[in-house]
């Protein structure tokens, strides 16, 4: 909310409704859990907080569930197959998850809340922190000049390929529009477009970077072996609020996910 008078500027962002997006992998062997922690800076009260969980992706119908009973400063979590029981019968793949938190206390700023996604299989388990929460757009219409998104659709990342891991870029698009990322990297000393393709509406898409970004790049001798370390940057059109990007590292041999880094 913003109150602007003659010569007086007073800003206050309504941030009691926030959301973030992440991804999970669901197969017959891999199960995913979502952990969330609604918090509001130093506010110590246990105000009620609702958690809206939405799952979307290729081959499945977008679906949501409202988790009631949450409280500020009380961490909680749920297995995705418990949140969406029908999911077990609908194949497997990489899916996008949107976590939206809302508190009726209008003065609370929930942007410090956090989400951890956990993927578990008999062979491995992996946890990663989702991208920071952003204020939901519909709540910030009164504040057109406020910085509701720290990235504002601009993305920059570092990809590492070595003897054990290969990198990929995961783009989680919860909008209803096709996304054409405009990414760039340094190729033979000059700025060059990084061609990765498009991201369908309401989907989470993984783009391998070993061919498009790392192949042909200079490798470095490091203490952990030879490695290609490349940077990329660019703009995600319409990606100011409902698109998130992650670097996913997979084991070179088994292809299992080993690390996820939010951009």
């Amino acid at each position, binding site marked *: 909310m913003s109150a602007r008078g003659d010569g007086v500027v007073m800003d206050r962002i309504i941030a009691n409704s926030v959301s973030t997006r992440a991804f999970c992998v669901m197969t017959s062997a891999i199960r995913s*859990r979502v*952990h969330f*922690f609604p*918090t509001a*800076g*130093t506010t*110590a009260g246990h105000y009620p907080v609702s958690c809206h969980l939405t799952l979307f992706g290729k081959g499945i119908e977008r679906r949501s569930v409202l988790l009631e009973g949450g409280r500020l*400063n*009380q*961490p*909680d*979590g749920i297995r995705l197959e418990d949140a969406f029981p029908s999911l077990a019968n609908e194949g497997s793949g990489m899916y996008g998850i949107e976590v939206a938190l809302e508190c009726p206390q209008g003065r609370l700023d929930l942007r*410090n809340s*956090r989400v*951890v996604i*956990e993927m578990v299989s008999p062979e491995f*388990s*992996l*946890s990663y*922190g989702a991208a920071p929460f952003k204020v939901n757009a519909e709540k910030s219409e009164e504040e057109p000049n406020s910085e509701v998104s720290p990235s504002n659709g601009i993305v*920059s*990342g*570092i990809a*590492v390929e070595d003897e*054990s*891991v290969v990198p990929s870029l995961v783009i989680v698009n919860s909008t209803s529009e096709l996304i054409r990322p405009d990414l*760039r990297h*340094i190729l033979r*000393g000059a*700025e060059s477009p990084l061609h990765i393709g498009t991201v369908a509406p309401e989907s989470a898409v993984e783009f391998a970077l070993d061919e498009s970004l790392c192949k042909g790049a200079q490798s*470095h001798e*490091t*203490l*952990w072996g030879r*490695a290609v*370390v*490349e*940077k990329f*940057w660019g703009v995600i059109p319409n990606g100011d609020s409902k698109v998130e990007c992650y*670097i996913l*590292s997979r084991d070179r041999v088994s292809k299992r996910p*080993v*690390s996820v*880094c*939010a*951009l």
Partner: protein
Amino acid sequence: MTDTAVKNHFWIAGPPLFSSTLLISSAPAVSSVATLEAACELFDVDGIKTQGFKVEFPANEVGIVEIEPFMAGLKTKGGITQGHLVVTTPADTRQICRLQVGKQVDLLSEPKVIKNREMAFMPLLLGAKREHLIVLLNTGEEVCQVVTRLLYGSRSPEWTTQIPAYGCRVVSLEHELLSTFDDLSWQKGISQGYLRISPRAQSSIVCQMIEKLPGETEDNILYRNVCAW
């Protein structure tokens, strides 16, 4: 460096179990300059500065700073040679830490500083055969009290850890904290729990957690970075 410089605090650890490497990249606007400079300060577990160094690299490349050669003055505590690395780079640069724990490799984004009674949370699975190492790093100039609360079932024991200015601590949840608690129910089976970590008063911290899972032999012990804020 200007006021808009990027400054981050990383926990770093060295061989034999750990390997830490800093990766730095600049945004296109910064790439208009030929070289990029990163100023690094390294503090030991007690917050004593052991190294101050600067590295320069071509701005259109990713800077790779292997920390091991700079770790000579760091102390070993709890079997881990470790320290607190403060990195300052120009505005619009990214700093990522490649942390290898055993065979597990993680790329860690810029750590979030938790300050003034804000709270971090970490999910974990409690069980007799698991161990969780809580990494706490004091980013401030004063001694810091960190409150760690474990929530599992209907229980929520709480402990306070003191960390010197710019120092760091690795605390074993099971061996150092839960061993002082009279309840042993967490050792039966595996149960979901959450850690809530908060600095007292005007302090500021960075925290992360490493899980240790037993193997059939010492070589097969599995480590993984569960969470880093």
